[in-house]
């Protein structure tokens, strides 16, 4: 195996930000390749700056490298300037760890966190030196795999990727490795057959697709393939204290800080949120293990900032105590010998955000504070089941300003089911109200309103909803902008409605969309999630060329009776639970968090014989979810309580 570094080095003098190609990060592993080992090239299909911090990829990188039968390196999408030089010189995609050509690996595995990276996936498969279509690959060619949230409807990529992994990857990567070791002598078809038999693994080639009317029916055609592929879920996060050696980049990246995942899963039940739906149930990391991971992580990396990550960190049992512990003693001597550790809580729910947390965060350096009410009226928040009352929001915003924050960022969606202009204008009213509250505490209080277009996602109650047209989204944003024009304390930012549409096409598309993705890629449409590269025309033209209608794919409401392209893939959620939740949404009826109320039997626990793992069965302070209901009424709640004293976590 030969390192491509000598060929690459002269090119790096000619490109922007060459440091993203050199590897050598603190925490990187000197991969020991060897015969018999399965070599994984873990690839994030976007630039290094965006991809390096991805925790999922880092976790699998460590777990695989700890195994005796596997080795893992990393790759990222080279930026256009380097790609052009590489293609001119015939250099393939390479790993940043030891600069090996992608072709030296057995598996090229992608992390799919956004639909807009799909064209990059094709580009990288091509750059790796193999055919982009799975059917055209043979023999010893790389196996192409993918996981991440988008894998819950991978059909648009089904013609290009050999296998998908649904759900948590911690355990299944080992099983995939073992299947490859055991079957590779038997050839590609045998390996794929074995993979199709691994729980949580979906091999598209093992299924036949038929289209009848508006239904898409996917059924097995290989004996190894199950009718429905069920996702994988690790029952306890405490068993997986990863990453143990988070990578510390040598150049600037997004989220450049220590990240410690405090829990996985979320049962707040926001109906628009795919992440919440597909990662159920809630599995908290023992607080003791979090503390150890934070203190060891800070010492090892030299970072002075730590993010406690999850889908809604304020819901973590005992969060106030945890933040206080991480910030350190009152005298200010923080963890790694620096005066203060900054703690950021990336996903804060306003109803669980208390003045106590605000005060603890404030003692450390202040980072931006973002709240996501998502919708501008209580009515619409009931529809989407983001049950935050106006009082909850007032209290949180006032709490923040009273503790010295000067700017609060609010995140909203437009294009939600049943949304009226009144709801949209409610966003402006809410922003103005926040400024007013802020002015009671600080001079120059300001609010940034960030508006995204809603994309209905598979495996959620809104999977049947026809998304708003580009024109409709534009109209709503204009309405809002107009209303806020005179307000100098409110800054409005919005996401491009055209990109929202393309995301929607890829999100709920079927296999036929693959040809469109290939077309857009062949026309040079890569890095589509970067606004300067996004090319709406390419997508519309390709849709037309392949006879697909935007109306059909994204705008129409789907019905109860039709088979959806992802019905053969399961996140545990029963379809009738989702349908009922969709009906409840239309009836403006909210649903409480099943962590603190009786189980609805959505399937995520009951189907897999697992439970919530939390340290406290009481909701966080003020956590009535605004429903005014008694959340503590008795009933069977499948909760496993963590012991209060845990053995020190990181081994």
């Amino acid at each position, binding site marked *: 195996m030969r390192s491509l*570094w000598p060929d690459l080095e002269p090119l*790096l*003098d000619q490109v922007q*930000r*060459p*440091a993203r*190609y*050199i*590897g*050598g*990060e*603190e925490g990187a592993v000197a991969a020991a390749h060897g015969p018999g080992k399965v070599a994984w090239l873990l690839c994030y299909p976007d630039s290094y700056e965006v991809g390096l911090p991805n925790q999922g990829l880092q976790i699998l990188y460590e777990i695989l490298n700890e195994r005796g039968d596997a080795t893992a390196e990393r790759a990222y999408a080279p930026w256009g300037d380097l790609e052009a030089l590489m293609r001119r010189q015939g250099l393939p995609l390479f790993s940043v760890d030891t600069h090996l050509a992608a072709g030296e690996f057995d598996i090229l595995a992608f992390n799919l966190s956004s639909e807009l990276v799909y064209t990059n996936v094709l580009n990288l498969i091509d750059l790796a030196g193999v055919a982009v279509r799975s059917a055209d690959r043979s023999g010893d060619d790389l196996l192409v795999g993918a996981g991440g949230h988008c894998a819950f409807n991978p059909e648009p990529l089904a013609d290009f990727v050999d296998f998908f992994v649904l759900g948590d990857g911690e355990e299944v990567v080992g099983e995939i490795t073992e299947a490859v070791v055991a079957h590779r002598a038997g050839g590609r078809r045998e390996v794929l057959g074995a993979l199709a038999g691994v729980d949580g693994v979906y091999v598209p080639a093992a299924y036949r697709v038929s289209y009848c009317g508006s239904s898409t029916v996917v059924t097995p055609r290989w004996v190894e393939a199950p009718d429905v592929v069920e996702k994988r879920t690790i029952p306890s996060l405490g068993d997986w204290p990863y990453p143990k050696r988070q990578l*510390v980049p*040598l*150049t*600037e990246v997004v989220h*450049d800080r220590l990240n410690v995942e405090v829990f996985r899963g979320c049962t707040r039940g926001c109906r628009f949120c795919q992440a919440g739906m597909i990662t159920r149930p809630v599995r908290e990391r023992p607080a003791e293990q979090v503390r150890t991971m934070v203190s060891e992580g800070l*010492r*090892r*990396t*030299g*970072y*002075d900032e730590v993010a406690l990550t999850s889908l809604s960190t304020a819901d973590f049992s005992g969060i106030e105590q945890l933040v206080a512990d991480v910030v350190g003693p009152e005298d200010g001597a923080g963890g*790694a*010998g*620096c*005066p*203060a550790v900054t703690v950021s809580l990336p996903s804060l729910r306003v109803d669980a955000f208390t003045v106590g947390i605000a005060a603890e965060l404030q003692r450390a*350096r*202040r980072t931006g504070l973002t709240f996501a009410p998502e919708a501008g009226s209580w009515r619409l928040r009931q529809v989407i089941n983001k049950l935050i009352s106006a009082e909850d929001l007032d209290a949180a915003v006032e709490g923040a300003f009273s503790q010295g924050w000067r700017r609060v960022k609010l995140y909203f969606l437009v294009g939600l089911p049943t949304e009226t202009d009144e709801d949209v204008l409610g966003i402006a009213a809410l922003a103005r109200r926040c400024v007013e509250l802020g002015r009671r505490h600080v001079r120059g209080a300001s609010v940034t309103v960030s508006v995204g277009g809603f994309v209905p996602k598979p495996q959620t109650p809104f999977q049947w909803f026809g998304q708003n047209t580009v024109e409709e989204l534009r109209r709503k944003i204009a309405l809002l902008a107009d209303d806020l024009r005179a307000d100098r304390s409110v800054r409005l930012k919005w996401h491009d409605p055209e990109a929202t549409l393309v995301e929607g096409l890829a999100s709920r598309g079927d296999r036929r969309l693959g040809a469109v993705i290939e077309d857009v890629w062949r026309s040079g449409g890569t890095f589509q999630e970067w606004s300067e590269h996004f090319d709406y025309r390419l997508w519309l033209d390709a849709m037309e060329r392949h006879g697909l209608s935007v109306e059909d794919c994204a705008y129409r409401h789907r019905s109860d009776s039709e088979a959806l392209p992802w019905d053969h893939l399961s996140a545990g959620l029963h379809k009738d639970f989702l349908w009922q939740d969709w009906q409840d949404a239309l009836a403006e009826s909210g649903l409480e968090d099943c962590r603190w109320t009786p189980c609805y039997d959505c399937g995520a626990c009951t189907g897999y014989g697992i439970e919530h793992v939390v340290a406290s069965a009481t909701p966080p302070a003020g956590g009535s979810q605004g429903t005014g209901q008694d959340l503590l009424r008795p009933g069977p709640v499948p909760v496993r309580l963590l012991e209060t004293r845990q053995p020190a976590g990181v081994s």
Partner: protein
Amino acid sequence: MRVRLRWSKQGKIRFCGHRDAARIWERAVRRAGLPVAYSQGFSPRPRISFGLALATGQESVAEYLDVDLRASGEELYDWAAGMPERLSAVLPDGMTVHDACPLRPGAVSLQEAVTSCTWEFALTKTDTALAAAWVEQVRSADSLPLQRERKGRTTTSDVRSAVGDLHILDASDRSVLVAELGTKPRAVRPAEFLHLIAPPLAAGCVRRLHQWITRDGERYEPLAPEAGALAPGGDVLAAASIDAVPAAQQEVCA
């Protein structure tokens, strides 16, 4: 109290820019557990002052920086003595600390003090005869006009006096051009130097070999006692100039 370090940046890490290096240093001083002083204010940072920026892609065996420690007296000397090892252990591959000395209070900052740098240009792809002719042209030029752009305005200045000693060192495996370029009032950058005479000289890797402080006709390195370095008995100048210097450089120093 302030401690001055000499460090090197070689190999793949040369592709990290100045800002990247600054971030690496902030984390390194924390990881090394040094009693580093922090800036005041909203977002305190370790107090480190870097010298003249090294461009992305360039190597150096003569980088310097000053770091403020919360220590004084004997303790300060102890910390300084341990710094090369402690810091090198936590810096990435290719970054190494060679020397560390406390500075006399009031010592002039690197940015202000350094008056010239010695650079090495790899001439691997260039015909040596061609390079020799180019060097001769620069040597014999009466004036060397350099066009520079700043805030959208183009200015031309004569940098003849900023271009010092030039040598070509020929070895069997590689040839290098060694040049001393002034930094006052504005540094002549290596890339600018190669374009002083058309056609520009083609060069590969660029490496900084020395930074110099010239005062009253004498030349010192930034870790010399004359530059403010305090050595508890021992010849700082010697310590600062010997190790990790490529063979080609000895002639230039002599």
